[in-house]
């Protein structure tokens, strides 16, 4: 549904996007993850036709943005970052304007506007001025304008930034409910958002894609060095020493010590191998293995690692 090939965007001598190629399939929710200034917004602005790429091609639903910019934009609903809407218009008036500009036919206009007002939970504020709304409501109006013409592709730039936790959950649910029928590309620098809403994730840094996978796949692929929580019943000092000298163990953090039970988090280069040898060692010594649990790596760690590793490779 979204096809991007060798996309480059330069501003003067700055290279904001340095050759990006990716495809988002119909119905997928793709997350774009990257630190601030990594090129997420620039990629989205090229996709939405805000400005043309320096080189490379973009097609939305099979329509190249070079050949038919208006046709491509017609297929897109876009929520810009930090959206502020026309404060002097009422919600319903604003949505009617957006629908009309985006080519919704006169006869359908009222139905469509009512539909998105309902869907985005704006019924009680439909007659209010946008300037009087809370940030959460404004964000919903932003999403409502993006979907009012039933676009094939939805592009959301940091849709949950600056919202309170309850609003964040509501927006995520809204986005998830749009997946399937609509292809969604959303950017964020908040990691849990990706695993909660997206089917696939791309990590962007310095204007390049440095990883692309499902959220689960990505954490699996990167579980080179993972953490295991271990509780062993046995003499304190001996247990710690014995674990420390296992070949795969990199670092060891002791969490608590109670009457001859040690709890620690062990970080290893190869988690499975470490757990196997640790279990064998504990049994051989006649201690009690109370807990041996791999800790799921948070996307946060993963993100930091991916970015760091890539930079090291580049150097």
């Amino acid at each position, binding site marked *: 549904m979204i096809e991007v090939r060798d996309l480059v965007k330069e501003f003067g001598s700055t290279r904001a996007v340095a050759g990006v190629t990716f495809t988002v399939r119909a119905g997928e929710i793709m997350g774009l993850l990257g630190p601030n200034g990594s090129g997420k917004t620039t990629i989205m602005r090229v996709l939405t036709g805000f400005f043309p790429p320096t080189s490379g091609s973009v097609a939305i639903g099979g329509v190249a943005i070079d050949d038919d910019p208006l046709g491509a934009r017609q297929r897109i609903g876009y929520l810009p970052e930090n959206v502020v809407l026309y404060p002097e*218009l009422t919600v319903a008036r604003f949505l009617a304007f957006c629908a009309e500009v985006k080519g919704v036919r006169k006869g359908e206009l009222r139905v469509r506007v009512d539909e998105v007002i309902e869907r985005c939970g704006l019924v009680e504020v439909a007659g209010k001025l946008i300037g009087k709304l809370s940030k959460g409501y404004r964000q919903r109006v932003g999403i409502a304008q993006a979907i009012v013409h039933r676009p094939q592709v939805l592009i959301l730039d940091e849709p949950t930034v600056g919202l309170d936790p309850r609003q964040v959950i509501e927006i995520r649910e809204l986005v998830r409910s749009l997946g399937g029928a609509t292809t969604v590309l959303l950017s964020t620098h908040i990691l849990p958002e990706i695993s909660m809403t997206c089917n696939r994730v791309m990590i962007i840094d310095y204007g390049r894609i440095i990883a692309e996978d499902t959220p689960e796949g990505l954490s699996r692929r990167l579980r080179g060095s993972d953490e295991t929580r271990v509780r062993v019943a046995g003499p304190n000092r001996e247990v710690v020493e014995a674990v420390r000298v296992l070949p795969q163990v990199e670092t060891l953090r002791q969490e608590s010590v109670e009457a001859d039970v040690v709890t620690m988090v062990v970080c290893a280069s190869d988690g499975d191998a470490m757990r196997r040898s640790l279990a064998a060692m504990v049994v051989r010594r006649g201690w009690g293995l109370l807990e041996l649990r791999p800790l799921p790596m948070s996307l946060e760690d993963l993100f930091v690692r991916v970015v760091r590793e890539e930079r090291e490779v580049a150097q």
Partner: protein
Amino acid sequence: MRGVALVRKELASYFAGPLVYVVVGAFLGATGYQFYTTLNSYVVFGFGMNILENFWEEFFVNKIGFYLLIVVPLFTMRLLAEERRLGTIELLYTFPLRDREIMLAKFVACLSVFLIFLAGTLLYPAIVYHIQPFDVRPFIARYLGTLLFLGGCIACGLFVSSLTESQVIASSSTFIILLAFWIMTWNEAAVSSSLATALSQVSTFDHYHGFARGVIDLKDVAYFVMFIALFLFLTLCSMGSRQWRGRR
């Protein structure tokens, strides 16, 4: 059709705030007062043979034209500057609209607001006509001229508004530019005669003056059409600059 939706939204934005009502009121109050006092002095002191024609010429140039010049920046300042400051320009640029449609919609919407101003001024000749009927044909020239002059001022203001995010800077700069075009030939003695001739070719005052006398000169029409076209073209360039500047 899509441009029309934008024109309607622009008008809704204008009429949502108090600006239009306040400024229309002030404009009609000021020109109404000037209409009374100026007409009074022309009638009492009579200036020249053709008192009424002289009166209308002065009234259109020095009162209506000049007051419009002051008022236009207040209405053009928000056109693009406000969209940029709010960030809503990003919505417009990513809606299925061409830049020139956005620009023309803004231009037409602003010009339509000024039709209210012009409609209000129709009252003055109507009053005189009621007392003493006269040939109305010169007024076609006067209103055509005023409309063209307004178009020029709005195009200029639209361009300046596309350059900045600040409405204060947009309105004050527009006013300075419009005033410069208006008064550049007022002191002909201060410049050489060849320069004075050149300046009179580019001065809005000199070209508007012909219309105020009740004459439609194609040169004056062409001047204002070119004036409008130039500033609309510059506006389009300025809007397109996001391609290489990367900012809205």
